[in-house]
């Protein structure tokens, strides 16, 4: 089989670029730990409250340390449950100081959902039986839309809340 001289040049260049992409991605993933979320932690989808983090009183934003927060969420059709505020109303908005490290932990008791803080790298599939989790530093102030980006039923597009990162 014969390859034209220029085709050899092209394939070397093309494959070289692909290898370079992979090296960059592999370095980030394996050395800097920027793998997409994949913890493999399981949970009984019919009884998520049995898990400490998803007991009703532990939902929503919790400050664990200076500039360290945990956000526990139960995503169900068609709502994100962040728990209730002091007056007993459902929380629909959370505020995080700029530069804080936030661990998001999300589960679903029913169908598959998405968990995407639009415009950030917080983007996870939420599947029944698994705890989706991701730790990020919120560095850019602003108001973000947190929305479901995996089809979950007729109210899918009404499943959202807001996240504010303040200075």
């Amino acid at each position: 089989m014969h390859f034209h001289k220029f085709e050899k040049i092209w394939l070397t260049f093309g494959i070289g670029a692909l290898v370079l992409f992979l090296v960059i991605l592999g370095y980030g993933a394996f050395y800097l730990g920027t793998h997409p979320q994949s913890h493999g932690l399981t949970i009984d989808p019919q009884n998520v409250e049995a898990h400490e983090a998803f007991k009703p009183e532990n939902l929503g934003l919790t400050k664990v340390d200076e500039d360290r927060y945990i956000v526990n969420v139960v995503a169900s059709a068609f709502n994100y449950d962040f728990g209730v505020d002091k007056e007993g109303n459902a929380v629909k908005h959370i505020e995080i100081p700029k530069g804080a490290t936030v661990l998001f932990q999300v589960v679903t008791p029913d169908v598959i959902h998405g968990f995407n803080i639009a415009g950030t790298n917080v983007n996870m599939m939420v599947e029944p039986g698994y705890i989706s989790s991701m730790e990020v530093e919120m560095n850019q102030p602003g108001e973000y839309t947190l929305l479901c980006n995996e089809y979950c039923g007729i109210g899918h597009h009404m499943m959202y809340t807001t996240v504010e990162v303040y200075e």
Partner: protein
Amino acid sequence: MALHNVVLPNEDSRQLLPIPKKEAKLYMSFMYVAFISLFIGGLMGLLQVLVRSGNFTLPFGIGYYQILTVHGVILALVLTTFFIIGFQFALMSKTVGMSDKQRNLSWLAFWIMTIGTIMTAITILLGKASVLYTFYAPLKAHPAFYIGLAFVIVGTWVAAFVNWRQLYLWKKKHPGEKSPLLAFMVTINMIMWFIASLGIAVAVLVQFIPWSLGYAETINVLVSRTLFWYFGHPLVYFWLLPAYMAWYAIIPKIIGGKLFSDSLARLSFVLFLFFSIPVGFHHQLTEPGIDPTWKFIQVVLTFMVIIPSLMTAFSLFATFEITGRRKGYGGLFGWFKHLPWKDVRFFAPFVGMLAFIPGGAGGIINASHQMNTLVHNTIWVTGHFHLTVATTVILTFFGITYWLIPHLTGRKLTKSVNRLGIIQTIVWGIGMLIMSGAMHIQGLLGGPRRSDYSEYGGTEQAVTWGAYQMAQAIGGTILFVGIILMVYIFIKLAFFSPKGDEEFPIAEEEENAEPTPMWMENWKLWVAITIALILFAYTIPFVDIIQNSPPGSVPFDWPIGNS
């Protein structure tokens, strides 16, 4: 390279065979279903972009997700599959021939696929299966939806068996000869399709049907998704390879040239067979239950499948340049200026090729492991596959339609239809540039895919997305004009064009072409390597998924409006 094994084909086997009337009827039946699907699916697409513009509400209580399901199923599964199976049958018939028995079996394939399609379509239209074309568990559709899909797949298997039998019989009659290039390519595509669709068949038959009928209480969600995407990525190559068949083996003839290289074309198809399947995890990168190391391994394998496309790009430019230079057009790009721009059989697929440049670049971005979190399930992805399947593949299929339909119906592609086809292609290109471009940008800004119109509580981000959704409505409307034009052209070519003899263009090799090595025909080895790669990529993570399974999921039908 065992060159001494090479046997030059005798004159007889290079001959193209005529397509008898009885067969033409069969192939046209596939085309009728394909173009009816194009119209229905396109109409649904128009409704979607209008709804998402925020200025239009669906009448009669029709749900957005219902029309979205129709759009996905009928275009991604029905239109593509019927066109491809019909086109591939025609290629086989032309190059290796079809017996009466094979024709009867092919009709069987057609009817199984059609019955399945009708079952699925009715279930969706009754609003009982608004689960989108990916039907992710534990959303539960009416069982008829899954049973219909199973029929479609089984029908394609019958077609695959017929195709393999066609080549087998030809090879027995022509011992020691290489198989005709197009027959080789069809066989590769159907082997890939068969191995891949086993995954979805297992998911549907073993998991979804018993579960939706109530015989199984729960379903293993991650297993079903993994089986779906084991099938879902080769599915897109099942769409793309017939377009590549036309690019490699038909376009050179249309532009008045020869094959660039028979062996390199075959090599790229063999590579597609190897690397199309063991890559499904790149659709599951943001899922919680799969080991990230195995995700990365499949990302590497995904990058391998880019290589045959790099080869194809070179091969196409080289075909154009060699042909142009031979015609006497010198300079660095004289050959490019003098391509037959006014021949729609070339122009439509060419615009498809152009779309594959951003389409392919976007695909590399999507598959880039952690970078996937930037675009996953945003409307960027929708923009991406509207470039690849809805431009590259479909414009090439339209390019095929312009000569295949009149060839089958004994008519001519007239000058006026040719001109209309050029206009159709331009309309499509402009519409898609606007729609897909807006989708890509909105996706980078975080806008979600698969979503009915929503203001998301009036956030600033959602307001920005609104402008891009308006642009998509404009692009989508232009595309619908393109669909009307194409359906008109199809009807014209099928029933009203003047009688005549339209050429079935198949390119020949150069007189002094380097012989294709016979090891290319080592089918058993190709299948063995394919299976080995699949076992390598999937065994350990799949066992891991099963061993660490959470409790299964009961069916949910109320979220899609059933109960």
